[in-house]
């Protein structure tokens, strides 16, 4: 973390250590790819193993502005250490540069975060829902999405060139 602050001082918005001793760095959204590239490529750090990404909706917490936090966990096999990064984005403009060009492992995690929180990742090659179907409305892990919310029924999708087996006329 000290190295990151020394190398890219303008990228780090805030640094703190949580109660359990984990060190965090809050990064400006624009400089996230720069920080991640530095962490990955620096020969002394080599945070190459992609851990995970997830969002936090801080709607009901004391500090809820900006509303969303996206957390990144990278791991260095060389140093046996985790690095914890955090990016804060507002509800009106939930856009973060994608890390997929840098880490291929980020691809699905970014899709997951997009699916659940509606945070868009700029530069992602294939940003679509991953767990839920395309017609799903809303983003279920946001705190204002009710636990027992219902979704409208969707019509069956037409399927082209389907062959349903011998003995049928080809129609369902």
């Amino acid at each position, binding site marked *: 973390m000290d190295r990151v602050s020394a190398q890219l001082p303008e990228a780090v918005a805030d640094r703190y250590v949580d109660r359990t001793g984990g060190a965090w760095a809050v990064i400006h959204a624009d400089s996230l790819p720069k920080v991640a590239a530095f962490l990955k490529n620096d020969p002394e750090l080599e945070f190459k193993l992609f851990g995970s990404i997830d969002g936090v909706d801080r709607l009901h917490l004391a500090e809820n502005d900006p509303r969303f936090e996206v957390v990144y*966990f990278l791991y260095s096999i060389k140093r046996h250490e985790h690095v914890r990064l955090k990016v804060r984005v507002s509800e009106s403009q939930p856009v973060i540069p994608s890390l997929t060009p840098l880490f291929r492992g980020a*691809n699905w995690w970014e899709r997951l975060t997009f699916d659940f929180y509606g945070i868009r990742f700029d530069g992602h090659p294939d940003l679509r829902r991953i767990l839920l179907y395309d017609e799903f409305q809303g983003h279920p892990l946001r705190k204002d999405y009710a636990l027992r919310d219902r979704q409208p029924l969707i019509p069956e999708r037409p399927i082209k060139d389907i062959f349903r087996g011998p003995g049928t006329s080809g129609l369902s």
Partner: protein
Amino acid sequence: MADPVKPESHAPNPDTDAYAHESELESHLQTKRMVINMGPSHPATHGTVRLKVELEGETIVKIDPEIGFLHRGFQKSCENVTWTQCLPYTDRLNYLSAMMNNFGFLNAVEKLIGLEIPERAQYIRVIGSELHRLTDHLTCVGATGLEMGGFAPFLFAMEFRELLHDRTAELTGARLTTSFGRVGGINRDLPEGWIQKVHKSLDRGLELIDEMDVLLTRNRIFVDRTKGTGVISAEDAIDFGYTGPALRACGVDYDIRKTKPYWVYDRFDFDVPVGEHGDNYDRYLVRLEEMRQSVRILRQAMDTIPAGPIIVDDWRIALPPKPEVYGTIEGVMSHFKLVMEGIQVPAGEVYDSTEASNGELGWYIVSDGGGRPYKVHVRAPGFPVLAAVPHIIEGKMLADLIPTFDTINMIGGEVEQ
């Protein structure tokens, strides 16, 4: 039922009538690009996942795994129940090694509270975890053998797994989804005479593992289908976020039990098997050896387990003993508070990881100071492993998909959270 619309004249069909014309016999076999669905519920996919496979002949041109058929809203559900009520949900993430998920979650919660659990509870957690590491690997190795055409190795694996499930049932009262952990310790102590029984089961189990080893490791069909297929280089594996046996098969020595020991893992003597090529055969060998190492850990843990309490003596965290609940007002009150409101975990956040059977199981937990989690994020080891399947398999044969899918051991529950 007879087909009412019979075609009058036989229209030529280029797919089926190819052999009817002699000239075409000498021409190349006709292929056309076709899309087939494997799954969502296919005998060779462990778990509910749909693979949209685009084939050119037998070669896979493109593959798109589609997950989410099992999605149960794990995170959302956890945010609406107390910390203790999350435990059954965590069990069902990986239904083959429920205790590991359970204890991993508790480890993170205890770290957030700042709680040290009693030594005996730590030993029992190690024992439970290793038992379930065995059952998980047995299922994986057995199913791999089965899907390569060998039924006997699968039967041996199931026999050992049944023995372990019986021991698990004696310990926890359930065979698969045990819900055995509690914040601050575990649910109940070891039953009387249980350790001797486990030793006996492990003796039989080692014989069964050897039988599987003999039947599979040098089997011509098995070796031909697994060696050199599903290869992923160490660099790519790290880039995708592989952990556990799938990463170690590539030659990367990373095991959280060694690098950042939790509970009492640093007191035991065991080795971490590492592969070389990162192919299906290495992943199989790594799992096979890991089972033997698990048996070693189990034996050491059971031989050295100390006496003592199995849960912390703090009525704000653990339920008070029943005589206190029925006999004293303090007991009633703390029981009521714990059941109705849940454990009051101080506000804060934590990221903690343990070595589950398929790799690093990470938990990112945010608490707002109440009795319910504000946010629970699980970094399931199967998720990145499945995400890399297109990279591994594109351009290879359809038949290679089966062993690859077997040995990466993706578990639907944790991938789909």
